[in-house]
């Protein structure tokens, strides 16, 4: 009896690991192939031999150096980082203020104004794109960081997320602050805001990832190769040099590695941030 239970247990374990490992391999193959191709010569990359997996005549790291120079990766990184930083600052700043007001304060028109936030989240974002582009164009900020950041100056989703964050805080905090002589602004800044740090981190990660992954908006606003982001830059490269496979893969590696490193360091925050915010990426 006892041994049959333990056999069943072992079989269960084996099946579990087998399934997980199979999927782990499926998840890994594209990454591995991307890196392996990136260090081959084009000749090697297009040799049709299933066992020709690893590069045979040395690892050609110079592919990275080549794309780094010819696609001006420093500029792409710089543009992307600025884009992300400003998006995150704008989103956190406006959302935390509005979230606090919606979550903790009473004021006339609150319900109607909050419904504006909720309705925005239900509208597909594609409906905003053409007029947003025309506005950016009229403001003469095409091909600038300001133009990239523009649609992300405020965030309905972030406002909603932080409102929930503020609402979950204990009720008597404000009273205690008021007794200590804080006005509403001070209460918000010194007492309430620090307590919603985890919601802010979630929103920050969400916003950063969204900006990093966004393709359509950077392609529309930054048509100039020296002003665009990594994602849109890759699209441009593919259009121009699509058949130099090692170069393409080297570029793809360069584009995703920084975010992967950040993700591995801040894994817990990433996974929890995305899971709790439940935002649509």
């Amino acid at each position, binding site marked *: 009896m006892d041994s049959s239970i333990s056999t069943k247990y072992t079989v269960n374990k084996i099946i*579990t690991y087998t*399934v997980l490992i199979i*999927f*782990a391999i499926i*998840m890994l*193959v*594209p990454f591995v*192939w*991307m890196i392996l191709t990136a260090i081959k010569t084009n000749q090697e990359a297009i040799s049709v031999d*299933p066992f020709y997996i690893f590069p045979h005549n040395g690892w050609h790291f110079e592919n990275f150096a080549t794309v780094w120079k010819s696609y001006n990766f420093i500029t792409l990184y710089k543009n992307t980082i600025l884009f992300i930083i400003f998006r995150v600052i704008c989103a956190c700043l*406006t959302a935390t203020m509005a979230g*606090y*007001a919606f979550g903790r*304060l*009473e*004021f006339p028109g609150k319900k109607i*104004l909050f419904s*504006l*936030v909720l309705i*925005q989240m*239900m509208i*597909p974002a*594609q*409906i*905003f*794109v*053409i*007029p947003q582009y*025309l506005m950016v164009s009229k403001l003469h900020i095409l091909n600038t960081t300001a133009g990239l950041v*523009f*649609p992300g100056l*405020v*965030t*309905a989703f972030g*406002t909603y997320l932080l409102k929930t964050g503020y609402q979950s805080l204990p009720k008597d905090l404000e009273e205690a602050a008021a007794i200590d002589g804080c006005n509403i602004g001070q209460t918000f800044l010194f007492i309430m805001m620090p307590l919603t740090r985890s919601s802010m981190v979630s929103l920050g990660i969400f916003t950063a990832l969204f900006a990093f*992954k966004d*393709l*359509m908006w950077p392609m*529309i606003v930054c048509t100039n190769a020296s002003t665009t982001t*990594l*994602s*849109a830059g890759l*699209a441009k490269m593919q259009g121009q040099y699509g058949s130099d*496979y090692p170069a*393409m*893969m080297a*570029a793809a*590696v360069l*584009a995703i590695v920084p*975010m*992967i490193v950040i*993700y*591995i360091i801040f894994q817990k925050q*990433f*996974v929890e941030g*995305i*899971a709790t915010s*439940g935002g*649509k*990426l």
Partner: protein
Amino acid sequence: MTKKKMTPSQKRQAIWGWAFVLPSILGLIVLNYYPAINTVYQSLCKTGDFGKGNIFVGLNNYKTVLGSAEVWQSLWNTVKYAIVEVPLGIVIALLLAVLMQKKLAGKTLFRTLFFLPMVCAPAAVAMVWKWLYNQQFGLLNNVFHTNVAWISDPKIAWISVGIIGVWSIIGYNMVLFIGGLQEIPKDYYEAAQIDGASSIRQFFSITVPLLSPTTFFIVQTRIIGALTVFDLMFMVMDKTNLALNKTQSIVYLFYTYAFTNGNRGYGAAIVMVLVVFIMIVTFFLQKLEKKIVYYN
């Protein structure tokens, strides 16, 4: 609204409240509400030459859009993409999430790995998959000794693109499922075990109903996400791809008309079709939610 006299403290609160929501509300009006209305207006206009001047043409764009085989085809393509991505992405993610509930060595490693595509730019992901799918030199055809035109055969290209979508989304869905699974009280399972229910029976009688709010949330966000797919499509499907017509999504078509061709009026009309379609889908999903989702 009846005007009540506010106490000084209420007044103070109201002023702070308005001041705090002002940037967001102003932003939403300028960046979202005005554009939404403007898109509706533009869909009734013909874009003048050189992008200058809109000429009001009434429902002309809609007549063209609704009579266009291309638009209907792309809408159908989008639905086909969703049919691949949504169910597969959800079933696989649920399977992995359930397996990850057990005590396992290397659990964090698996989770990190499955979630990895979520932090990668879809543009890069699509490039790699395009290379894997390459008919002449791609890894897939080499390993399996096949000669399949994965992404240029109109009959299968939509599945191939859908699989990239599945690969990209599994980790995200899985993390949401793990969150949902952790909220199910453990004693349900203990009680079931005492009654001698098998794991499969436990899965269908406890996990599935109690997880249904999470599942529904994922289904809903994924359907809408899939119906607005763009990045993967754009990167994988070149303009010269033979399967483009039978694969491109409606947002891709919108992008092509509104921005590549600069025909904003027509592009706006395509977006309106998408919006109406998504609203219909959302409506039915809400109806469905009341029927199948089990709330405690």
